């Protein structure tokens, strides 16, 4: 395919082969009906162990307080905020795929939208735990985070970016959950009608709310989906923008830079797509979804990773250039210190994984290789984690006064929480692919060849 010229006058099919709608149902429902295979249990054992490490770390944290972490002055934000930003970033891909690519009418998104959305929810959960627990006394956090006046009648501070975060992340979680559920309703109805056991039938009946595929409903449903996508798109931008405001409204050199909002959003999409890519490749292989998630989809994902990686690279360069151009000594110092100071290894890991290795995706051969895609996507995740580490730790550890300089050394509990968050995420992913349809049935049926009427007069390709 790479040697010959594609025929641009024909539309690429979203799926391979010509399965009928009924076989699609069967294919997608299979993982739900089959008794889980041994490797599923092995996977669950691994992620469950990681989750338990997190639970133990969390218990210890709650018992002793945030002092068990490596944070201290001047680096008062450590792994907690690094992990929060990292996971929120991962959580951006799902809504991006289901909303932005929907608005841009990228039909290839159909096969992967559902589990990307699910990953969004799980990633936001992982992120939220860090902000809740880094408050120190999370059992009182309800009263600090939500607009409820305290005993002196003082309200939360609506001018604080941390308060904006509360609003943004909660809104994002709720909207993503609604979006996800809305998409699942027709699939629940299909599963209800295919159900063989009473438990399944009752469960899916309730979950489907009584959906009956009426076109009088589809009409509103489609419009609602469009409206949701229209709102989710700026929402997804706003969430990571507000996360970037946490840093950028301050006056810390290295944090206060106006490019942060779009740069964080691009970084979030970048890491989110990489994570989706990883899960996608495994799911595709494990459940034999090769016909539904085509190589073309994986290649397009890689292209988006390349584009967003390059945008992130642009922001790195622009930040460095303006730090020099500003003529501000502290500003320039922070950037030089990032690259050549005590945390140089974090900086160069970030640069390598985020800017340099994704450039390999310029080659079509690498873009269409499963193994290479998988490895490079892992690299991106590592790089994006280090990016947040670099931004947070290196900006703080050299305070304005040299007498206030310090270093951040994570403790085992920091790592415990990090491992635990991965455990939580992948446990939820494993449960999701087992119990819910991992691919949107109704959506994919609508894009298979011959699914739509031919009255436009342009043959089967619409």
């Amino acid at each position: 395919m790479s040697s010959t010229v594609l025929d641009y006058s024909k539309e690429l099919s979203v799926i391979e082969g010509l399965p009928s709608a009924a076989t699609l149902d069967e294919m997608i429902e299979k993982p739900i009906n089959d008794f889980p295979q041994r490797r599923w249990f092995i996977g669950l054992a691994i992620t469950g162990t990681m989750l338990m490490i997190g639970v133990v770390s969390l218990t210890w944290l709650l018992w002793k307080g945030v002092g068990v972490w490596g944070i201290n002055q001047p680096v008062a934000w450590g792994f907690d905020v690094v992990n929060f930003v990292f996971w929120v970033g991962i959580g951006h891909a799902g809504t991006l795929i289901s909303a932005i690519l929907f608005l841009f009418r990228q039909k290839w998104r159909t096969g992967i939208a559902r589990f990307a959305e699910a990953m969004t929810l799980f990633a936001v959960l992982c992120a939220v735990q860090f902000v809740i627990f880094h408050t120190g006394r999370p059992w009182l956090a309800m009263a600090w985070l939500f607009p409820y006046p305290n005993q002196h009648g003082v309200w939360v501070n609506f001018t604080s970016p941390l308060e904006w975060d509360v609003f943004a992340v909660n809104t994002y979680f709720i909207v993503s959950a609604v979006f996800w559920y809305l998409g699942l309703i027709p699939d629940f109805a299909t599963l209800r009608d295919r159900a063989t056991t009473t438990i399944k039938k009752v469960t899916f009946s309730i979950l489907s709310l009584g959906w009956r595929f009426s076109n009088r409903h589809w009409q509103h449903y489609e419009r609602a989906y469009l409206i949701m996508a229209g709102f989710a798109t700026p929402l997804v931008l706003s969430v990571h923008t507000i996360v970037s405001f946490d840093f950028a409204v301050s006056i810390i050199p290295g944090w206060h830079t106006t490019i942060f909002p779009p740069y964080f959003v691009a970084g979030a999409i970048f890491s989110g797509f990489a994570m989706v890519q990883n899960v996608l490749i495994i799911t595709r292989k494990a459940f034999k979804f090769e016909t539904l998630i085509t190589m073309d989809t994986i290649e397009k994902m890689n292209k988006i990773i390349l584009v967003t990686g390059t945008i992130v690279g642009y922001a790195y360069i622009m930040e460095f250039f303006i730090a020099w151009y500003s003529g501000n000594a502290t500003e320039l110092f922070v950037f030089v210190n990032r690259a050549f100071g005590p945390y140089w290894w974090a900086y160069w890991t970030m640069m390598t994984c985020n800017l340099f290795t994704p450039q390999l995706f310029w080659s079509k051969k690498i873009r269409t290789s499963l193994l290479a895609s998988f490895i490079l996507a892992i690299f991106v995740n590592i790089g994006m984690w280090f990016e947040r580490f670099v931004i947070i730790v290196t900006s703080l550890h050299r305070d304005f006064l040299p007498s206030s300089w310090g270093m951040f050394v994570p403790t085992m509990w920091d790592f415990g929480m990090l491992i635990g968050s991965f455990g939580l995420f992948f446990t939820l992913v494993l449960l999701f692919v087992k119990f819910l349809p991992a691919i949107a049935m109704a959506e994919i049926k609508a894009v298979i060849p011959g699914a739509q009427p031919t009255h436009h007069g342009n043959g089967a390709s619409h």
Partner: protein
Amino acid sequence: MEKKLYSISAIYSNPNDIIRAAAAVRDAGYKKFDIHTPYPIHGLDGAMGLKETKLGFVTLAAAIIGAAGMISFASWVAVVDYPQVIGGKPYWSWPAFVPVTYEIAVLLAVLGTVGAMIAFFFKFPNISHPLHDTPYMKKVSADKFGVSIQADDGKFNEKVVRELLKNTGGEVDAVYYSEEFLTFKPQMFDPKFIFLLVGIALATSAGGYLYWNKVLYLPPFDWMMQQPKVKPQTMSEFYADGFGMRLPVAGTVARGFIPYPYALGAKADSVGKFLVNPLLPTKAALDLGKKKFFTYCSPCHGNFGKGDSRMNGQFPNPPTLHSDKVRTWPDGAIFHTITVGQNVMPSYQYQISREERWAIVNYIRTLQRAYNAKESDLQ
């Protein structure tokens, strides 16, 4: 159980056929009919003659309510209810309210749209519709397309309908339902449901009570309270004498400390003449005096020094400050009384600074003059 006819249905397996069938049914003038497809089909809305959905208006309304509500709320909190200066910015720092306003607008728009659609446009949840659990539904939920013309349509005639659907190339069938299946009684006042609600309310209250009053006082939640510092009036294991509160080191005074030369028991009349008021009754001094008088003196002495306490008899009311005795006292006597206290009135020397005490004296003089004004004062 008697079965009733719900509708005559037809199944098609090609999207072009269903469009044609929809147009045919529409043109035949049926109103109560529906098309069921496993996924939305382009152009079907037009073929069925459906009007454009009104859902967008719900969204717009919800978004406007959210945005207006949130920015008003944030402004009210920041400007009216509890104004605080944050970051040296004006109280009404509107750019800082944009993010929360935006988020709430989006949240309400989305919840409003989906909520309205499900509850009012779809009338969901409804899991006992005649079409549910029929072979017809099983086909349209998989890969077939179906038309269903309801028996309660004004033009309905079973024969004609069957004919019409057959002509469009469909596989015609009928859907029946039993009356019983559709009867639905709201179970709001079912004792079991009420009992459940009461149970939930009790559990929530008990949980809230236990949480706020018991759980938060258990380790580790109380560890902010258990700090290894010496609190006032407590014993110390560190010092040999066991006192937690220490006297100053011998021969030292605190910064800015000026010792008061008169003893606690000294009579106001006798020491008053030795103390001279350093403050002139300027506007600033009187304002300060007024403020401090209202804060420290007025609860017992009354807002105008008339001895009309606000303490509701918790303490005996003090005598009025407008008596001849107090009016003829030198300034120093009042100052001394504030400093060391008198009868049940405690010493205020640690709460009120020297300057403030003198300012209060000046203010009391003003009050006294106001309540005993002479003709000359009025000119």
